[in-house]
């Protein structure tokens, strides 16, 4: 199955990543929706590493003449997609955090005004 050491190494690494992600999801350290891309990427690399004949046929089509390098290309593309996705998630979270903070500021002033006429600086740094 593994004709060279590099493919074996990639297989072990991808399997490790897959198990790590699954374990993190199980412990709720990683939300299912954010684990999906990691799972897809590790499974794809795993399959490519196992299916060496397929890899040997795909790699030349991409202009890659040392087939195991195609595994790294797959990993690199996968990482780019994941990074871009998470940048979009961060953008969304930032927007939501901003709106929440604005609402907190407005509501806090209103609460303080109702309770003691506006003074609310005890928690300022």
């Amino acid at each position, binding site marked *: 199955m593994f004709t060279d050491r590099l493919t074996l190494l990639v297989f072990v690494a991808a399997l490790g990543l897959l198990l790590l992600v699954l374990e993190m999801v199980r412990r709720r350290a990683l939300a299912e929706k954010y684990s999906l891309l990691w799972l897809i990427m590790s499974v794809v690399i795993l399959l490519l590493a196992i299916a060496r004949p397929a890899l040997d046929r795909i790699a030349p089509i991409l202009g890659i003449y040392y087939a195991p390098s195609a595994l790294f290309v797959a990993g690199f593309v996968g990482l780019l997609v994941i990074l871009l996705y998470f940048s979009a998630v961060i953008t969304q979270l930032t927007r939501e955090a*901003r*709106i929440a*903070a*604005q*609402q*907190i*500021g*407005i*509501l*806090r*002033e*209103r609460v303080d005004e109702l309770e003691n006429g*506006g*003074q*609310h*600086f005890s928690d*300022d*740094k």
Partner: protein
Amino acid sequence: MIDAKTLVIIPAYNEQASIARVVNRVNECLPAADVVVINDGSNDSTSLAAYEAGAKVISLPYNLGIGAAVQTGFMLAQAGNYDIAVQVDGDGQHDPSEIEVLLSKLIAGESDVVVGSRYLADRGYVTPLPRLLGTRILAAYVSMLAGQKFSDTTSGFRASNKRAIGVCAENYPADYPEPESLLTFRKIGLRVSEVPVHMNKRYGGKSSITPFWSAYYMIKVVLAVTILALRRAPQTEDTTYVY
């Protein structure tokens, strides 16, 4: 002035040295207006100083940036059904006595937003040369994209009518909002005009503009307005804040 319900929005970040003076001056110049200071997560006693000067104080829980702070003011103006919102910087570089210049232009109609410009007439404001170059280039670029000549695209000294308040409450850029917002106004179809004002030196505190950040500012703003120019006009109905 006339009986338009007016809110003066003063964003402030670590402006304890100047904020009381700004609030007092605004109160002197516009006794009928409500004044709100948006304390953008300051580490000093900006809130207390502003409160003691008689302003309503909104304290944001952490630093959101000038754009989000100003937008918070517009959210208040919208919720409070104000007719006019005026933005004045908390560092004292805008002269509150000139708010009236903005307001009379706004009330005359034909403008939804009136911007106080340092460069429209020579009012004694001396800009350091690199900065002048930067602001000129930026003004030329924004003017080109907006299809209207603007002389001072970074001025945060502005008056907005009800229509513009609604737009700003729902759609206001976060980081360096002034040039971007001009383009947004134009896209939505708000009428923007400039009036000459002069700007003071800061009363206290320190400017956030350093050479490194100026370069970053230029790149970021040029990128932001370019992308904004390629974007469709924002839908102003799709986000409504309810308190």
